[in-house]
């Protein structure tokens, strides 16, 4: 079937099968930043924003996204670059496979929570798994990034 996605501000008609998940349609359409990690909505690597809210695109039917605004990390590249500075400054980017989905959730948290403490940060991001970093470096990076944002 044919649907129309609005990806990173650009209208894109795509063809998809009825049961196909958004991750697969996006990857097939050239959005390599949306990663396929677990297939079961556990790891968060496939996170995208649908109408501004983070969703796990591996568990989100592509047809549901018909007509909606989809944002991948590339759609927020400027802000993502700023966060990347903090993440890489801590060495917490590591293999990077979880990074686009994780960074998107961080940027979403920044909009949603005004001044989260560490427990709130960990809770908000609990659905973004990382097997490399042990999370500590990511937490250091997020705190410093949020501090810098507040200082602005």
């Amino acid at each position, binding site marked *: 079937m044919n649907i129309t996605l609005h990806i990173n501000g650009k209208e894109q008609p795509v063809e998809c099968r009825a049961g196909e998940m958004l991750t697969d349609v996006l990857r097939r359409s050239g959005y390599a930043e949306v990663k396929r990690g677990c297939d079961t909505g556990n790891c968060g690597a496939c996170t995208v924003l649908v109408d501004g809210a983070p969703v796990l695109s591996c568990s989100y039917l592509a047809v549901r996204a018909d007509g909606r605004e989809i944002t991948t990390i590339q759609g927020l590249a400027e802000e993502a670059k700023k966060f990347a500075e903090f993440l890489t400054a801590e060495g917490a980017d590591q293999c990077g496979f979880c990074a686009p989905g994780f960074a998107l959730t961080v940027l979403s948290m920044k909009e949603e929570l005004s001044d989260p403490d560490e427990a709130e940060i960990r809770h908000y991001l609990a659905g973004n798994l990382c097997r490399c970093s*042990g999370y500590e470096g990511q937490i250091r990076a997020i705190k410093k990034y949020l501090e810098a944002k507040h200082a602005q």
Partner: protein
Amino acid sequence: MRNDHSPTPPSADTALEATGKFNVVAHDVPKVDGEGLVLGRPAYADDLAPSNALYVKLVRSPHAFARILSIDPVKALALPGVACVLTWKDCPRIPITRAGQGNPEPSPHDRFILDEYVRYVGDEVAVVAAESEAIAEKAAALVKVEYQVLKPVLDFEEALDNPVVIHPEPGIHEMFPIGFEPARNIAAAYRMEIGDVEKELAASPVRVETTIHTQAQQHVALEPHTAFSYIDLHGRLVIVTSTQNPWHTRRLLGLAFQMPLHRIRIVKPRIGGGFGGKQHIHVEPYVAMVTMKTGRPARLALTRREVFEATFTRHEMRVTVRLGANPDGMLRAIDMQVLSNTGAYGEHALTTFMVAGSKTLPLYNKAVAVRFGGHVVYTNKVSAGAFRGYGAIQGLTGLEAAMDELAHRLGVDPVELRRKNMLHEGETSEVFRIMGEGTEGIAMNIESCKLEECIARGKELIGWDPGHLVREVAPGKLRAKGMAIAMQGSGIPLIDMGSARIEFQDGGFFKLHVGATDLGTGSDTILAQIAAEELGVDMEDIVVHSSDTDHTPFDVGAYASSTTYVSGSAVLKAARSLKAKLIGAVADKFGVAPGDVIYKDKTFRTADGTQSLSLDDFSYDTLYHDGAKMKTIEVTESFTGDKSPPPYLAAFVEIELDVETGKVDVVHYVAVADVGTPINPNLAKIQIEGGLLQGIGLALYEDVRYSDTGHMLSHTMMTYPIPSREDVGRITVELVDSYEPSGPFGAKSAGEIGIDTPPSAIANAIRNAVGIRLTEYPFTPERVLAALKAAKAQ
């Protein structure tokens, strides 16, 4: 998550000594690929696959053990869009191993790319390729396979001499003696003894014995195993794959398909984590078969379920340790006997098993008698393979349980018991000489060991008070502390070899080509740091290209904690040689002796100050201006260690144990490590933090569970939980000042040491909390509660 409110000394923010000594090395340089990865630029194999590639799907065995009677591909082939269905009849009958190791491999050649037998649920039966993923999936389901179902062996305790023989087929063999006896379900066996262990044990006034069972564990690298292949312009087979060892992959595929190696090129793009899980050939043979059959590009990204069911796990082991000691706590004898489960095939069977002893027993080098032995057995479960820690974590878990039991028996501080018996700088252990990885070892004196410093700082950070290791913080909630120490290695001496090529470019920068494989650890970055430091340039003056069998020099790959020490030493040698060549060429230009040229701040000067030339200007001279003297200035150097200096780590943990529910939470995990000079302190720390969390996962959460028919029950990330960021309280990692004279700028390794201690330290904390030695991992609430009830009933 538990919040820790106990006072902790502030982190030692005083910079490491090394940071003051160097310009680039020992500094927290950001990873060279970091920004691109965060932005999700196409980087991994699946991102880069050509859009016209056929999609590959594998038909997998639904039985734990069966013989394939027939495979009928007719219905699958009839489906529009299906390109081919390949079976064991399309493969040369060549036994191989899927383990990326040395050559010859210590792993038995007991596996065929596709075989007439399947030996675990998920074993490969047939390869299907089609124009789309959906068609390939549909076609795979249409391949009709008739099986003769055989009785499987699922419990590794029952495998030895079981009437069911898992590998009855002729032709499989060991590459050199490893104790391979397939008729007895033995993949490998080994024993060694220093002194007379039985005699020393008999004469020891104090003896303890513990038996610990560590479970299989899944790597769960976030990127599933992925590869694509194509035939290039010259008719050669190119495979782009998420591998930790491009050269082993090329060699193994050449053997499997009887192809000369010059017909194959392996490229590793960015890979999404490895941890040992990508140190094998799991996907490459199947895309290669399709490309060779059809001439078309082919792509295969495993599903998460396939990664769980049909790649590799950690070896499940049963480790029995007997210690004999004098009343003052001095060890007289250590006996470690191990049974290891290699699953259906013997990848890394001997070596992981030997590392259980070789990278733990030297820790306590005061014992006069030491024995190690046991068997590695086959079962009809998914194969075990390389996994960070590689046997050391299993062996250590047995040894550190026994050490704590000895401390309890003697009524002494477990820290002091360890200090009394442990290895110190300047010392050695006979074990180094006797036990290598599948072969004899290499004698080695320890030139850097800051375990004492690690322990002292760790005690401070956790607030260690041996008289008060447990307290009740609320009714039924116990806070308790435990500790453990660990060592690892830095590459495999005289076996692991890495190379680096550096070439001077116009614009005054350098191309650094290394065979080393960056799994996400940041090795491209730290290797560039080493080159930049030695060449006296900035990070941006080094452009790294790694892991391509056509375009980078040889390297065994990223495993055995080898990259910093082995590949890093190759880079340092290359940078040193290149600097000498540059100075020689400029001296020639200046008309002076090389000794009269001073190179500093990217500028060459004569000692008398009369002539000077910038690196940038010289780069154009040597490539464009100097007529007959023009030349490319480049050098390739290799390194293999004649030793494997261990990094060390002292770990202290505080847990909270809920006696009502049996739940154990890590409140605070402190790890202080000696990794020599950390080339990049941030990246070294993250290696340890990440390793710790995987070790905590093994201790508390992660378990590979099967049904009684051998079907894996934990085959999704829902049923196999890895730690999330809410599971663990606080992790504190510090590095101590240390310098390894044989390492590049004093460095050792950091990749594996982090994972080793958590199972031991947490078990010891639980023992301190409730007086019970738990022996079955992981320590789930159910197990803890059952142990508490059993203890109460006694």
